[in-house]
């Protein structure tokens, strides 16, 4: 029972305080705590510029959206940024319906998001 989400980290060339974080699976109430822990730990260790690659993120609910907003706020507080790329159309619709697209920094492609760092 429960739901799986895997996240993996990739370095960004020439930017030691930046990483691409790939989300794979469903982000929901059963796993937000573990994701929160990993991303906050990353930021606490000085990686304050993050691009979240959502190409393989199938689903997100309101709890998941909540932590995305939290990451965005936290990164700004630490002088960095939290950007999102490759959002599938269904997930984007949920983000848009709730109005979170106005607060989150969303890019169509990963390269575009990384270049903006």
């Amino acid at each position, binding site marked *: 029972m429960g*739901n799986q989400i895997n996240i993996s980290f990739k370095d960004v060339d020439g930017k030691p305080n930046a990483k691409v974080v790939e989300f794979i699976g469903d982000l929901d*109430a*059963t796993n937000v705590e573990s994701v929160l822990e990993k991303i906050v730990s990353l930021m606490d260790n000085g990686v304050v510029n993050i691009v979240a690659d959502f190409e393989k993120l199938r*689903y997100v*609910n*309101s*709890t998941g959206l909540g932590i995305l907003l939290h990451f965005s706020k936290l990164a700004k507080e630490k002088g960095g940024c939290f950007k999102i790329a490759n959002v599938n159309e*269904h997930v984007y*619709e949920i983000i848009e*319906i709730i109005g979170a697209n106005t607060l989150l920094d969303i890019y169509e492609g990963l390269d575009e998001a990384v270049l903006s760092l």
Partner: protein
Amino acid sequence: MSEALQVFHFKGNLNADRVHEIEESFAGALADNQNFIVAEMSEVDFISSPVLGELMGCKRRLTERGGNLYLVGLNTENRNKLRLMGAEKIFEFLPTIRSAVLKYRWENEDKGDEITVTIPPALNFVPEMRSLFSGVALQKGYSKRDAFRIETIIDELCNNAVEHGARTPPQPVQVVCRIFRFHLEFSIINRNAATGGDGVAEIQKRISGGAPFDLNERRGRGIELVKMLCAEFSVSSENDKTIVKVIKKKEV
């Protein structure tokens, strides 16, 4: 068996010289104003092209009258042959007469199908629930986008029920789904926590727009999402139970 359906059992080789016989059977049914016909083929060894043509003609005549012809029980060989001839674009191959009856009822009586599932009050049961109901919606002809929206609705409402329901002793969460051709109705039922009345009043306030929605606040995002995705959304308290009801219309 529905009286509105007439079943023809076919047997053996349906070669070209049986076209006339089949044509007469169908003509008789049409003359009797029978608009829904089941062609039961489980004992058919071979279907010739002229017979397939006759089946297609009958299907067309019935469709023009608002009826249908269901092909039932085709063996693998016949099914594959008909597929190769493109008949799958015209007919939906159904496995049994019962499945034809259910399809007829689904398409014409619109009484809906009901599914009730009860889960323990634990968040890790919710993903299976949302997956189940989005899968049912897909099977019933709803779009992928609708299925995703249904997944979201079930997820948010079940999470709320688990988080805010009574904990001592733990009380199950029940989801009742009635699925129709063009809409779904969900009821999510759980036992109130001690503060159940206040919780219901708060949700009612959010549904009615009486409590302003703030995206930066932790609470209320799920309810706001459900509100935006559903045509109707209500919550009530009966005895010691909280009942949330939503209606989701099919995307057209």
